[in-house]
């Protein structure tokens, strides 16, 4: 089981993970599950009808818009980084948060490294499954590494241009 780190009010901590990530050819266990987009499109109605918590895992070439009509019923959207250098999930995260209004848990999975923390939080992720041996304390620090930001993004931080008017 991968370990899960969750941010709350800017502080990262270990979190219980009630969800099981399920492959397409795997039979469904009890309880909350995260399935692929393809499986969700095939079995999603039945899974939701069963009353269990449901998450969908998007690969980096899946369009988040595919979930546009289902988002309020999903507890988790997991976005995959096949390699840390593959930055498509940052765009997907912002589209989910800022355009499609997703308010559930946005989870980073795959090749998720500490140095990405700042970007992940800014793009609207609130949980990560780190691929390295890092601690919540490190993730808290890395997400806060800059006192200012230049852009508005999904985290609601005040950008420099707004700060300048206020000061």
């Amino acid at each position, binding site marked *: 089981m991968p370990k899960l780190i969750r941010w709350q009010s800017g502080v990262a901590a270990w979190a219980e993970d009630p969800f099981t990530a399920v492959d397409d050819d795997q039979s469904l266990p009890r309880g909350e599950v995260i399935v692929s987009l393809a499986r969700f499109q095939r079995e999603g109605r039945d899974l939701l009808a069963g009353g269990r918590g449901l998450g969908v895992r998007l690969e980096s070439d899946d*369009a988040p818009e595919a979930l546009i009509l289902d988002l309020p019923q999903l507890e988790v959207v997991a976005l995959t980084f096949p390699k*840390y*250098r*593959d*930055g*498509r999930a*940052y*765009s*997907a995260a*912002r589209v989910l948060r*800022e*355009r499609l209004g997703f308010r559930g848990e946005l989870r980073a999975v795959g090749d998720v490294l500490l*140095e990405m923390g*700042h*970007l992940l939080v*800014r*793009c609207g992720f609130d949980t990560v499954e780190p691929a390295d041996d890092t601690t919540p304390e490190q993730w808290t620090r890395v997400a806060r*590494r*800059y*006192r*200012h*930001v*230049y*852009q*508005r*993004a999904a985290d609601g931080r005040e950008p*420099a*241009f707004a*700060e*300048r*008017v206020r000061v």
Partner: protein
Amino acid sequence: MYRYDDIDREMLADRAAEFRQQCVRRLAGEITEDQFKPLRLMNGLYLQLHAYMLRIAIPYGALNSVQLRKLADIAREYDRGYGHFTTRTNLQLHWIKLKDAPDILDELATVGLHAIQTSGNCIRNLTADPYAGATADEVDDPRIWAEVIRQWSTFHPEFSFLPRKFKIAVTGSPKDRAAIRVYDIGLRLHRDGEGALSFEVIVGGGQGRAPHIGAVIRERLPVRRLLSYMQAILRVYNRHGRRDNPNKARIKILVASLGAEEFARQVEEEWSLTDKEAVDLPDTELARIRAGFAPTGFEALPPVSAAYEKAKASSAAFARFARHNVVAHKQPGYALVHVSLKAIGETPGDCSADQMELVADLAERYSLDEARVTYEQNLLLPHVKLDDVPAVHEALAAAGLATPNIALISDIIACPGLDYCALANARAIPIAQDIARRFADPVLAETIGELKIKISGCINACGHHHVGHIGILGVDKKGEEFYQLTLGGSADDDAAIGQVLGPALPADRVTSAIDHLVEVYLRERRQGERFLDTFRRAGLGVFKEAVYAEAH
């Protein structure tokens, strides 16, 4: 010039502090070179053939005297007393020790300089017209908009891991001095009859392995909407650019495969869904940045300077310098003065710490404290009184910085090549030096007129060979250095990719080949034609014949 405020400065300080931590962890062995590599690259620190190379960003090529002196200090203290200005208007220091890198970044931050985003698959350091704020033909100062983009693109949360690197160039003038058609995004400011400013947006240009001339995807973008439109372009690229093959990952490949029209449609669609007010800067912030570039300190002068005219009349050398290195300014009585980093026999773009200090002194004393770096690897003093040009010339000449060769045959662009670079197939610097020596006679160079030679040591084209009037590309043939010549390229308004002349030549035949090409041009040219014009009229054949005749 725009001065960084507390927020800008704290961003640089935070970044430098972070990198210091990362270096400490690396030097202590807590992280491996593999883990450290992406971190150092994000701070412009490359590992090259012989040492670490630090690439320092010079946003839109603009420096004040304090910054230029700091670069000189760093070159002297941490390197071998010189640096190399690149076609991206960055400064590269090629002999850096890892343990010194954090100190260098700290020192840079004290004067508002940094190495942020000079490497990696992110939005790189911006370039702009080096004549910005000084030329009569511009409709607006491109540095304003380059600074707007600089801030927006710094540590951008969504666009730090793009499919490939991403370069943006801005000009405010109808005459292109920023090579905007061979950039990932090229922006040209336009002012309509009612005074409203807009951008012509060009996407998908580039050099490297697959050279492309960029396509216009929007004729008129209101300037207030710049950042939201940039976000739309970058988002389409980030989501759909190829990631399976680094050689096909630049935006030019996406634009070419979709077609410019379809790419534009996708951008417009993305943009139509964008909350523009959330992305675009408020007018007050645009005004704040604009004020940072307001012209100040100009004196009201007569358009003609007796001292300047007298110097031209009394010295043939000064008159030649005036013809080639001095350009008319929008302000009467002022001029732009090119500082040539192409002294005959020297390395193109190299500048010693002493030379940097001299240019800093001249900038402070004679050029309203401003100096510029041009993508053609020279420096520029943008605001010199005509009265002062003779004194500036004298000081430059004494330091080997007044070669009167701007845009002439010895004003050669060359990448560092195999003398430094781990990617290179062949050396570029000795080829440039040899050609420059052959055409060292200033009278001959002047007779030949505008001729832009550009040399790259490999297909990545850092030396812009594709857009040289004569391009020279280093290739490896079974372990030997060979050079492929291309003719007819241009990075200017008449942008074009050069055509291959014929089989690659060994190093010792390159200069004689250039000789033959020049002979053909001088023989064939008609009144007023540059080399490029003659080539375009007469075609490849006559040139090819002359170069390869002796092989038959």
